[in-house]
């Protein structure tokens, strides 16, 4: 078995289970001597081998090297557009978990109400565009999925 590393422009990870769904993903390498950073996967040659759009530098990895991939269609962190209000999602999830265990979630629900108001009021003073009523699928007669 060859050691993990970069050989002739190909990344080799014996612990890899790569398939074609990895093509286009961003791979982040840490702990490497020459290839730390992000790489876009170009091709998957084998479950343990892939190439990247940019050409990496050949090296045999140490045991400290780690490659991370973000699953397709997902994010590794809350996006900018929601980061300020992520407390709402956390409270919502925590309430669900407590309710499932039949534990009291009253305090969290009260906080959720306050957080809801904060979100709704966050842009209340903003006048950079006319107010536009939200068009949501289940509320508009047309324009949503299966609205007939």
């Amino acid at each position, binding site marked *: 078995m060859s050691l993990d590393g970069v050989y002739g422009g190909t990344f080799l990870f014996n612990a890899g289970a790569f398939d074609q769904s990895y093509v286009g993903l961003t791979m982040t390498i840490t702990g490497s001597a020459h290839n730390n950073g992000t790489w876009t996967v170009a091709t998957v040659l084998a479950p343990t081998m892939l190439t990247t759009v940019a050409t990496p530098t050949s090296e045999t990895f140490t045991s400290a090297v780690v490659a991370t991939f973000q699953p397709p269609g997902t*994010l590794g962190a809350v996006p900018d557009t929601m980061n300020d209000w992520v407390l709402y999602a956390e409270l919502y999830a925590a309430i669900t978990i407590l309710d499932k265990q039949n534990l009291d979630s009253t305090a969290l629900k009260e906080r959720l109400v306050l957080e809801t108001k904060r979100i709704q009021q966050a842009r209340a003073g903003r006048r950079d565009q006319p107010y536009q009523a939200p068009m949501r699928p289940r509320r508009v007669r047309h324009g949503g999925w299966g609205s007939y």
Partner: protein
Amino acid sequence: MANKSTSDVILAIRQHSNTVNRKVVTDDEVLARANEGLWELYDLIDGAHGTYFVKPFAFSLTGGYGAYKTALPADFYHAKAVDKSPDTSAMSSVDPLPSFAERNNTRKRGYDLEDVGNISIYPPALAQGDYRLLYIPKCPQLASPIVVPSTNPPPPLSSPLPIPARAMTILKVTGTPGGTLTINQADMLAKNETAILSLGTWTVLRSSNGTAITSTNQWAAGQTAIAQGGWLQMVNNATGVQRLVFVSVRGSWIEVQNLISPAVGFTGGTAITAPTASDSYFVTPGVGADWLGTGNSDGNVNPQLRTLVWGSVDGTKTRVVWFYTNLAGVTTIKSVWLFDTVGGAVGGPWVPFVGMSWDNGNDLAAATRFTYAQTGSLIATRTNSNTAELIFVSQENDGIGNINDRLPQDQVTNQYVWLNGAGLTISGKAPPRNGVLGWLTDQWWVGAPAGVPAFPDGDTAGGRFIFIGQMMLWWDGSAVPGYPGSVDHPEANFYGRAAS
């Protein structure tokens, strides 16, 4: 403030629900609840702030039957608006179709979203044109990244770490061929041993200068100490392995023995006869002294010799390469010694060394040996569809004094692959007892695009290495792998007299 990562969000939810230490729910379930919460938050923000998440999607239609619709983007959640002729002075809004029954109303254009994932412009006869759909994409979902760690083991403590290579150039004094050890030979041999001892990993036990035995290193005096024969016995501080270098001058016949005793140790001996050990064996063939590079066989009475000596930090490994330059200025590798503690080698549970290289008078740079050329049929060695030779072996030492040439370079095809004291080697017959001398090439290190170092040694010549058994030498592509003068190991790194 950095955006909250998936793990940060999971931790926060566990803190809110008092499940940080009470693992009644798995991280996967917490993440699923987190994504539900994000969807709710997304809808809340979308409802409160209208166009906050709007994305544009441009499309063009030629109109008419079958050309009045196009597929929606993959991340489509719901529509906000549709513009016709966007970013032009004729831009206009396209309203949602008031009702499906009015889809063929030729007086007014309208858009509709269909369950099959299309956006349609009705009536088809008016659909021609450029459009821009302003839509809300699906809520992004959090997921923990897929982590693929390197499975490489951490480097062993005995990994050969760089100790400055040492080289020596012998005195250019004409020796007297035959009968006595030439000054060149003696000088080279004495300096070589001095270099090994200077690593600090070997200790002299006894020495003989041909007339007396002492517990000190009489060879430190240089070539005059051993011109009439003698021996030097030393022990490896880390492993207890003993070495013995023995010079015997018997009339017109000179013998220089390079021996190892893995466990028993050398005892006995006189000033002119070698100590012995029941488990000893040769590092280099125990006949003649040509391996010292006297030059007698090729008429060169002033050979330039250098040795490179490596030692691992833990002292268990010592590696020596002798280089030889003849009158024509051709430098070759003359001898390779490895004193390595390698386990599980063929021939015993513990083989401390692999060393060989002498080939009965021929230099190792003969065209069929270290000439770098990929010849013969190729075999696939990797799964990337490329083919390349994996291993070439030019010689093998059978451990009983025989050097078997393997010419031309054998290929792996129809050969056995052995893991022995020399590393990964091949043989078409019984496994070599003491390893092989040869070289190994790997497509990954020679197949890089032009201008891209194939191996990160920083060598502007292309970054190549070459294997001799387990030992890897830097190589700038010249005829002699590892010879001083590469970018990584410039001449200035070596000490000794300049070759002139």
